[in-house]
Every structure is written in structure tokens, then in C-alpha cells.
């Protein structure tokens, strides 16, 4: 399991747990079920805490180490909860040559946490992501699902202000 356990304790509603059971049941017989189940589980809980991984391992007849091995391999699977507002700074090549590194720095400074982390109040998280394929609009950031393209580093503060109120 991860070295640092997340600061926010795991809690799930009855509905969420039922949904997870149904998901496991649905994929159980399918070859290679672990990936679709983990993807579905992350949609239900927003992340994949140890408790959820144990349930999946038991449900699919796998060892916990196999499940954790898969979870930790893929960057999309998160062991920590994400912020209410997720910020993604595209670090694809086109964005990078147009100054994405500087933009990420500005974002980190503005919200007060580093890439891959969540702010202590749980409001924001920021990630430098792989190419999102909007290279024509480079550099690009996504804030809570809204896409901002053709950005200049100076614009970052103004954009984030809108989400801080």
C-alpha cells in the first residue's frame, strides 16, 4: 500500500457500496475484468482507497497485490482523493514548447499545492497531465472541466480567481 495514507478517511454510502457490488458482479465472468472494474470503481468513489481495492480483489478472486499492482501502474488510477475543482495543465509537447512549465508553476503558486496534490481544504487539486490532444490551442489548462486555450502565464491568476470565490 502507499507509503502515505491519505489524510481524508475513507467513507462510503450504502448506495456506493451496492453500486460497487453490482459492478463486480457484472464484469466477473469477463476475461481481463480488473481494468474495467477499477475504472468503474474510480467513477463511483472518485479514487481507489485500500478498502475498495480489497473488495475488488475479493470479488474478482485476485490477490490484493495484483490489484494494487494494476492500480499503481496506471497514472489515471488515484490512491488519493482529488480536489472538488480539478486543474489539469497539459504537458504535451506542443504545450511544453509554448510555456506549459511556467503555467504549471503559476497554478501551483496560486492555489498553494504542488502537482499531484490536493489543497488542505480539499477544494483544488492540480496535475500536469499527458497530452490532451488539443495541440492547436496550446498551451491549454482545464479547470473544473472548463478548457482554456492559447494561454499566457499572466492570465492564470485571473482565471483561477473566478474559481476561488
Amino acid at each position, binding site marked *: 500500500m502507499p507509503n502515505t495514507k491519505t489524510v481524508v478517511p475513507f467513507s462510503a454510502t450504502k448506495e456506493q457500496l451496492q453500486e460497487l457490488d453490482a459492478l463486480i458482479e457484472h464484469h466477473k465472468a469477463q*476475461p*481481463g*475484468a*480488473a*481494468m*474495467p472494474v*477499477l*475504472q468503474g470503481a474510480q467513477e463511483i468513489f472518485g479514487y481507489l482507497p485500500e478498502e475498495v481495492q480489497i473488495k475488488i480483489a475479493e470479488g474478482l478472486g485476485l490477490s490484493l497485490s*495484483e490489484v494494487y*499492482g*494494476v492500480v499503481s*501502474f*496506471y*497514472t*489515471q*488510477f488515484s490512491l488519493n482523493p482529488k480536489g472538488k475543482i480539478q486543474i489539469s495543465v497539459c*504537458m*504535451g*509537447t*506542443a504545450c*511544453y*514548447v*509554448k510555456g506549459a512549465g511556467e503555467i504549471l508553476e503559476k497554478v501551483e503558486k496560486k492555489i498553494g499545492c504542488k502537482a499531484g496534490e490536493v489543497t488542505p481544504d480539499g477544494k483544488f487539486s492540480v496535475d500536469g*497531465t*499527458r*497530452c*490532451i*490532444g*488539443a*495541440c*492547436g*490551442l*496550446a498551451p*491549454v489548462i482545464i479547470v473544473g472541466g472548463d*478548457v482554456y*486555450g492559447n494561454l499566457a502565464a499572466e492570465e492564470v491568476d485571473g482565471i483561477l480567481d473566478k474559481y476561488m470565490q
Partner: protein
Amino acid sequence: MKTREDLKAIRSNTIDRLNAYKDPAQNNVRVVVGMATCGIAAGAKPVLEACLDKTSELSNVAVCQTGCVGLCQLEPVLEVFMPGGKRFTYVRVDPEKAAQIINEHIINGRALTEYTIGANSAGQESCVSLDDAGFYKKQLRIAMRNCGCIDPENIDEYIAYDGYSALERALTEQSPQEVIDIVLKSGLRGRGGAGFPTGKKWQFAAGAPGDVKYVACNADEGDPGAFMDRSLLEGDPHSIIEAMILAGYAIGGGQGYIYVRAEYPLAIERLKIAIQQAKEYGLLGQNILGTDFSFDLEIRLGAGAFVCGEETALMTSIEGKRGEPRPRPPFPAIKGLFGKPTLLNNVETYANIPWIFQNGWENFAKIGTERAKGTKVFALGGKVTSTGLVEVPMGTTLREVVEDIGCGCPGGKKFKAAQTGGPSGGCIPAEHIDVPIDYESLGAIGSMMGSGGLIVVDEDNCMVDIARYFLDFTVEESCGKCTPCRIGTRRMHQILDKITEGKADIKDLETLDDLCGHINRNSLCGLGQTAPNPVLSTMRYFRDEYISHVKDKKCPAGACKSLLQYVINDKCIGCTACVKVCPTDAISGERKQKHSIDPDKCIKCDACIQKCKFGAIDKK
């Protein structure tokens, strides 16, 4: 379930509907809005809504969504086809402009040329449609033939342009071997990067012993800067589906998997819709078109691992495991997914297949060069004026792509190099700008075709920094299974870090060179074997830049922060504005006299440059 007769009727009815505007005797207008990810990100949704809203009372106007025409930097794009067939391409449209276009152009008949593509592209003021634009002139659309023309969520529109006709003919008139022969003779080679002849791959998989075989599609487009597969899936999903069914028929496979990266939600959505529609029409599932051939298709999502674009790793991932590559041989055609013979092709490769069957392999083989047939789609990006998706015949020169189609570097900057093939590829320097783009020519100069990312860099970019960027990527994406890649790339990255920080000596360059050779020869899969390429090719063409970093501790492009010095020049009037903003008190000087910066205290935060109104601070 549709019969061949039904499909024929759908084909002729739909094409009549789509082409209604072409008849000058009737007053029909067709309006299309590009609704791919990039269009939507630029605001195409409200534009489409405005069009639907404003035309709701106009029975002669058909409004529909399409995929991407490739004009990324001019999105949202709205095209109007007037009665008689004249095409107008409006760019950077917003809902207000859309309303104006409908009122002024469609209702009153006065084209708003100031919003068209010509008025928004340098030197092409008179052109109002994409057909005449410089961006399009040298392009030839085969893989992307339907992108931007049809509604990707409407199977009838795909069928209208001869969609699924190749499948009909194959299932009823051709043997599996005849299908393979057509692919072989077309000369099509894999578009994922390596360029293996597609027909041979099909032949191997068909010849492999076994009752259960799989067909897979690699849509894990992880190469940063490449997005043609996304665009194809979003703009023309049925062409990939049709090609996969054909492949299933050819090799004797009954189950297909499309492995799509999860970062492409719209592509996944459109694929799901397309698969559902194909099932409803009886083109997927049991007894396709009433024959005894059955084929089913399933989507599997990636979860953000670049290595899963490697074929054996992709299959391990579909099996639900960590996406680690396996040694080859055995090749996937013999022992692939779940240990069964598997045919795996890339999205763009599949997108070419229906065209080859519709137009004949002879016509496909006429396009391109001796050893590379057909076209290649490139995602043109970085420091280039017209970014976007371009499809050109093989053998087109890099100069034509960058200068004629892409209109060169913006701001009058000098073209320095083009990077192809992403983290596995290399750079093509300005001296080789006339190289014809095909597998062998690019390989000969140390780059590669790759999956199609083409990033232009100009004089402001440091090549060492670019190489470091790609290594940064590889280090993070190395799966860790084999030592040369896991540890070797990390060591390379450390050396590149040292170089860009000015802490390296000349011996480090030798070590770097040495490491490149070892990692290339000894890594398990393509990711590791090609990881040194960005370093090798930049060292080959820009060795002087490496030397300046190492010997003179200077970055000639002024991009490596650690090597920059902030210096105040003679334009300084001593206003003290910079002194006040400097967080480390590194700037000193009397009022009304030239100031100076203490390099030991300076943290290069850029605050002084942003504050100075006189351009008196240089980064050197």
C-alpha cells in the same frame, strides 16, 4: 437487421439528402459545425445551438455536426454550402457571428467574407472556402475523407459515402484470401510508427493455427503532440469498425477489441454510439448481413500508461494486468491476446482500409513513393502559424508541410527543427527541411515517421531542453520491467539535467553517448529501444548547443533558466521600479543612474523584466 437491398436504399436516400444543396434549381442550404474535441473546447457547442435555434423556422436549411476538418487554430469552424454547391468556410465563429451568418448570408444572400477563412489567414484574403485555402491545397484526404463531411453519430451518412460497401462485397463475393491480397497489393504499411506492411500482418494472423483469433485496434495514442487517431475516431468511427470486421473476416477472427486511451472521452462516446448502430443494422454480431460470419467488438479503456501503445503491453493491459511488454517472439500473430493469434493495427491504418476496397488497391498504390504508398496524417503543432491536422501523400517534403501548409513559424522567427515520432523519434534540422516524408528517408536522417506528431521548434527553443523533456517523459513512463530502460533512462535524464544546469563536463557527453547505445540495444520493448533517439538526434545535429552548455555554461537559445543571467543594459534610466519588486534585493544602484544585478543573489524570477517599462533588462 438490414439486407444489402436495405443498405442500397439507405445509401441512395441519404446521399440525395446530403447533396440536396448541390441542385441550383432548389433552394437548399447545408450548414455544418465542426464538433470534435478541439472545436468543442473552442466553443462549438453554443455555435451549433445558435444555428439550430436560428434556423428552426427555415425548412430549406439542414444543420448538422461533423468531426474535425483539421483547422485547429481557427476553431470553431462553421461551413455553409449554398444552393448550387458553393462552399463558405467561416472560422472563429461565436454564437453572435453564427446568428449574423444565418441572417445575412443564408436569408439575405450576402456572404460575410470578413469572417471567412481567407480574411483570417495571412495573404489569402480572396479565398472564402477551405477548398481554395493554402492549408488544404497540398493535402489529400484518404484516411480523413469523411472527417468534417459526415455526422459521425449517424451511420446512414457513413453508408451514404459507400460505407460498409467493402464489407458487403467481401462477405458475399470475396474469399478471406482475396481480401488479404487486396491489402497486400495496396502496399499499405502500418501508420502507428514502425511501418510494417499491413497485408503481411494479416497474412501471418490468417495463417496462424488456432480456432480462436482476435482483432485489435491500437487507439492508445500516447505520443504527446499527436491527435490524428482521436480525430479519426471522433470524425469517422464507422470506417475503423468496418475495417476491423473486414480484418476479422480475413483472418478468421470473431472478436475485436478497440483499446482507447481514457483521455479521449468524446472518441469513446462516438465509438460506443457507432458500435450500437452497427449492431442494430446487423453489421456487427451474429450472422452479419445474413452470412454465416459473426463478429463482435468491445471497447477497452486505457488508464494513462504510454507503454500500452506498445503492442504486447497493450494486450497485457486488455488482459487486465499491469501493462508490461512481453518478449517477442512469439509475435502477437502467433500468440497474442489471451495467448491466441491476434491481429493488431493502428487506428489510421484501419481508416485507410475501406477506401482501398472502395477505390481499388491500384489507385492507392499510385499515391506516394516507391516504398511508401498512400498518405500520412500529421498533427502539426508547436511553433507554426497554421496548426492542425494535415494529410499529405507520402513523399511530400517537410518544407511543403511546414511552409506551404503550416505557413512557417509565427512572429517571423527562424525554423530550427521539426520533431517527429514523439519520445521515440528525433528531430529534423533546418538543413534537412527538403527531406521527403516517408519511413526510410526519415529513418536515414535519424528521425522516424512515428505515429504522426510533428512539432515545430524555432530559434527560441533549446534542443538540449527538448531532449530532456522527452527523457523526462520516458523516465516517468518506463514500466520498470527491464533494467536498461528503467535505470538507463534515469541516468540519461540526470546527465541532461546536469547539462541544462551548467554542471556537466565534456566527459558526461561521452557517457551519455555510451548509455544511448546500451539502452537501444538491450531494452525489452520499443519504448526503451527508441528512448535514446531524441538525445541521439539532437546530439547529431545540435552538438554545438550541447558544447556551449557544457563548456561555456551558456544556453544559446536562452531557454535553460539556470544558465541565464539577468543583465541591465544602457536603456536603464534608474527609475528604481525593479529594485522595489526584486524579492531578493539583488538589484542595486543610485536613483537616475544605471542599475546592476548581483548574479549571486538573483533567483531569475523574472519580476524585474515584467516590471521594467524600458526594456532595460536582458536575459543572456
